[in-house]
């Protein structure tokens, strides 16, 4: 006789049935609970804030470009304000805004601008990178995000115009490109000061057409002593000189400068063969030589690193002293507007140790001693870190 389901089930002892029944119920509950995840943090804008500072030159370079969660954008910017920095430099990549040609998506940029405005912060916008559609197809040539040919200058300039038209009233200015004197920032090609000058001139005209008051910043050159343009980099001093030779004068309202101290104190004297903080004075000499000394300088990247593993780093105390000395020097120079520290915080520090040790605040918002020292300086408090 073929056993029926009923005959099989009647042979199973009741204790097993009961236990099995509870297990099935538990399983159903677990399956029902599985899709439940915490709701995303609700962000409330809150009342508009103002920055309390005694040193308006204090500025930081934030990295909110890749910050996904809005509460982290807000938290970062509120910590910048609490530190007493009145200005931030933030990167606004072209591919993020115009992923598809001719269609702009400003959502993330709007979010950053909204929270910066609410915290009372001024923004210097760094513009750069190139979307896929403005580069050769991969089957033809493998290129990096920094590969921009003259064929696509018009499209980049359109982005600059659109960006300034949208945010021109609420930003200090725009930086055109980043470190064009490094091959890696110039599409892994030999650097080309004349080509960069062409890009700068077109961008300047477009930005001012969109908003005559916006400050267009050129340069943002990497501090390097490499004398040979055919290699991976060209000295920032030589590059700037060639920019002037190529007709850059009058096509930038301010020079953006990157100047790092590495292992040298802030006071270390300028020397063409040395990369140190006062290298900015060499760039200033070039400007003066070309009759451009009325044009101000914004130091948009600077600082010291205290990574115990890096040979170009300093001890944490030295970092604090050098940083504060640099602020004092910048405030004494009538030709500099800001000193922006690289960097305030990076969203994810696991794979970027170097930037993690430049950061003033860790990815999980743990403040580092240098933050407290800069805060005390900016707000006129007693420093918690004095010898």
């Amino acid at each position: 006789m073929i056993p029926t389901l009923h005959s099989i089930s009647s042979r199973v002892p009741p204790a097993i049935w009961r236990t099995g029944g509870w297990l099935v119920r538990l399983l159903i509950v677990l399956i029902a609970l599985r899709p439940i995840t915490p709701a995303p943090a609700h962000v409330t804008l809150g009342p508009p804030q103002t920055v309390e500072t005694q040193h308006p030159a204090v500025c930081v370079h934030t990295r909110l470009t890749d910050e996904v969660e809005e509460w982290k954008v807000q938290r970062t910017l509120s910590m910048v304000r609490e530190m007493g920095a009145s200005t931030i430099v933030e990167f606004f990549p072209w591919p993020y805004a115009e992923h598809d040609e001719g269609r702009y998506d400003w959502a993330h940029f709007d979010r950053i601008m909204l929270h910066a405005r609410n915290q009372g912060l001024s923004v210097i916008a760094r513009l750069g990178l190139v979307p896929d559609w403005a580069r050769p197809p991969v089957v033809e040539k493998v290129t990096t995000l920094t590969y921009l040919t003259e064929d696509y200058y018009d499209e980049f300039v359109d982005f600059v115009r659109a960006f300034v038209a949208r945010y021109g009233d609420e930003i200090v200015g725009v930086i055109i490109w980043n470190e064009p004197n490094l091959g890696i920032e110039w599409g892994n090609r030999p650097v080309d000061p004349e080509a960069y000058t062409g890009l700068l001139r077109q961008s300047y005209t477009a930005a001012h057409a969109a908003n005559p008051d916006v400050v267009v910043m050129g340069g943002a050159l990497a501090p390097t002593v490499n004398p040979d343009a055919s290699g991976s980099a060209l000295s920032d001093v030589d590059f700037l000189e060639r920019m002037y030779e190529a007709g850059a004068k009058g096509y930038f309202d301010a020079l953006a400068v990157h100047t790092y101290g590495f292992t040298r104190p802030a006071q270390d004297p300028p020397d063409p063969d040395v990369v140190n903080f006062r290298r900015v004075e060499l760039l200033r000499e070039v400007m003066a030589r070309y009759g451009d000394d009325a044009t101000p300088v914004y130091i948009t990247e600077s600082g010291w690193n205290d990574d115990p593993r890096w040979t170009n780093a300093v001890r944490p105390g030295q970092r604090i002293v050098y940083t504060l000395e640099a602020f004092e020097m910048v405030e004494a120079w009538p030709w500099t507007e800001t000193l922006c520290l690289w960097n305030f915080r990076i969203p994810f520090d696991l794979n970027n140790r170097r930037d993690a040790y430049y950061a003033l605040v860790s990815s999980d918002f743990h403040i580092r001693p240098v933050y407290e020292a800069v805060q005390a300086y900016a707000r006129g408090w007693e420093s918690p870190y004095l010898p």
Partner: protein
Amino acid sequence: MNRAHALRHRARQTVHAARQHPRLTLIAIAGLALLAAAWVLTRPGAPFGPQDGTWRRSQINRDLYVGLDPNYPPFAEWTPDGIIGLEADIAHEIGRRLGVKTSILIMGYDGLYDALYIGTVDFLISGLRRNPAYEEWVHYTPPYFDAGQVLVSRPDAPVTRWRDLDGKTVAVEIASAGDQAAQRWQRRLHALDIVRAMLPQEAMQAVQAGEADAALVDVVSARLYLAEHDDLVMAEDTAVPEEFVIALREENFRMIAEVEDVLAEMRADGTLDAIIDRWL
């Protein structure tokens, strides 16, 4: 009816049920036996389980690839003579004891985990600390070095624990992990004065000069300084640990076991200490 009695009753019922239904019981036992066999046979290294391809390759080719960032003397430094340093020596010693030739691959710190992930290297030894974010696929060995903050004091008045500092003065390097730890201790002890120096060497000089009872500085600085100054002693254990570990891929279970065995041997026979003493 108490709980024990209820359990006994339930057990008797189950045995009774098993006697009443021998075929069902047999099927259940056979099912359990099958599950146990499947579990045993599919364990890592078992005939139907995952194999450690990295270990297999290493044994066939007699090679071992190690990734490090040679940017941190005396742990690892790139010289005309090759990569030298404490970590390079440990890597070579592990290779020697495994009977394979060690090749050190130089890479930037930020590329280390990527190189491990894609299999360019078999393990990393580069001042790494345990990182929970990677533990899904990375296995960390026990530490080969503790680079944390250690108390340094005079031998006639040794200070070995932070509790010994109550009512005393500690010298620290400004803004260091030692400085931050001393601030925490200050809140826990009845009294603790903190003297801040720009460099760890200056903090230890304060102890020598009698301006502080102890210095709390990083182990590397302490060892290098004490090598030239025998009027100070260092506590045996760090007060604020910072343990350097070797990172391997979690899937390389055999390589993990072998490397950890070798590391334990090196610790037991004094080789590890000898290498550390050679460089620090």
